[in-house]
């Protein structure tokens, strides 16, 4: 009899610590790591694609909050049968309204006027529109207005590029005309 009571108490005490225990034991660590890795195995998202998704998320979110970009975590998780994408972002500080407005305005103007960007961020997105990604020397690409590269002429000729692409005879020349803004990646 008394043994049973002790057992019950023991179980109750154990259950109190269950939450913390769960984090530590090798079994659950294995289970969770395995879940994550199987999610990745089962989806067709390559590490490169995940990296890109991460980058785009950082760009989008940094308009609204200042965050620790390096510490951003992007993981697949399983909740029952449902696959979930877990995003964890250490926020350094929320931006105030004016800053957000500014960021959005910049984005707007960038959309309407020119689409400048750092090549490494969007090169493969833009290739269909403006630029071949293997353009090694061009650090910055310019869209409609500033396209310099011969290779792009065909694609952008319908824009006002003809007027702008004057002096360039080498394929690799470009104007370092870029601001810090990015093109909308999903184009």
């Amino acid at each position: 009899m008394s043994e049973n009571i002790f057992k019950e108490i023991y179980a109750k005490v154990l259950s109190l610590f269950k939450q913390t225990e769960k984090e530590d034991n090798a079994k659950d660590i294995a289970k969770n790591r395995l879940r994550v890795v199987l999610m990745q195995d089962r989806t067709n998202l390559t590490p490169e694609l995940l990296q890109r998704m991460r980058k785009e998320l950082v760009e989008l979110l940094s308009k609204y909050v200042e965050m620790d970009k390096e510490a951003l975590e992007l993981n697949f998780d399983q909740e029952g049968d449902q696959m979930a994408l877990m995003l964890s972002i250490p926020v350094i500080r929320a931006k105030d309204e004016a800053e957000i407005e500014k960021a959005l305005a910049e984005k707007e103007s960038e959309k309407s006027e020119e689409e400048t960007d750092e090549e490494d961020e969007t090169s493969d997105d833009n290739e269909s529109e403006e630029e071949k990604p293997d353009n090694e020397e061009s650090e910055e690409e310019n869209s409609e207005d500033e396209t310099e590269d011969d290779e792009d002429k065909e694609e952008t000729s319908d824009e006002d590029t003809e007027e702008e692409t004057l002096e360039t005879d080498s394929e690799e020349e470009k104007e370092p005309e870029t601001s810090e803004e990015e093109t909308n990646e999903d184009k």
Partner: protein
Amino acid sequence: MTGRVIVITSGKGGVGKTTTNANIGTALARAGKKVVMIDTDLGLRNLDLLLGLENRIVYTIVDVVEERCKLKQALVKDKKNPNLCLLAAAQTRDKTAVTEEQLKDICEKLKKDYDFILVDCPAGIEQGFQNAVAGASEAIVVTTPEMSAVRDADRIIGLLEAKEEIKSYKLLINRVRPNLVKSNDMMSVEDVVGILSAELIGIIPEDTGIITSTNKGEPIVNTEKSLAGMAYRNVARRIMGEDVPFLNLEEETSIVAKVKKFFAGLMGKEK
């Protein structure tokens, strides 16, 4: 007679595919079924060793496909059980020596004379795996409760699901250590089944007897009192359609292991 062709596969090496093959085959033969085991691990054959038949091999599967002998000539009879025989892999050739079509053909021929054709699959997901699976209509996926083995099993299951010829696959969880499961140091059978969401056909406890049985070339199912042997015999019964409950390893160890541990502790102190 139309035999069933079952491929035993795992993805990862070292989880006990060949041991499983030898034991299930022997258990089925003990139950009176006519069984042939095919080792398709060309260049890395081992099934002959586990069965203690390594000195009896004259012809291999490669000799059969290259027509140096008849299929029947290449079948090596088991020492004890006349119902059981082995078609050995060639040790000196690589995976390209036999094609999917050839294996399919061999399986078709064997189906006429045997109840069960167990195909021992090499590790990996390359051509060796494709060959082994080619003639089979059922599969047993062997895994252990370790992350790498489960991950590879998941991959294998994905590949098996894509194969039209494979009508069903079942999971065999090998080398379970109930003590570690209990102390939350190892994933449990339920965890693995949950993650892989596959039907279970067997749970085999870790058993040091496997080592001695391999050394002797005598499958552990022939050892009546071995727990792993019993688990393998149960797998064979399930394959034959019997509804056999799974061994309760937890209970088994919680009492037996405690007593054993107690005595082991005493012995240790005495030394």
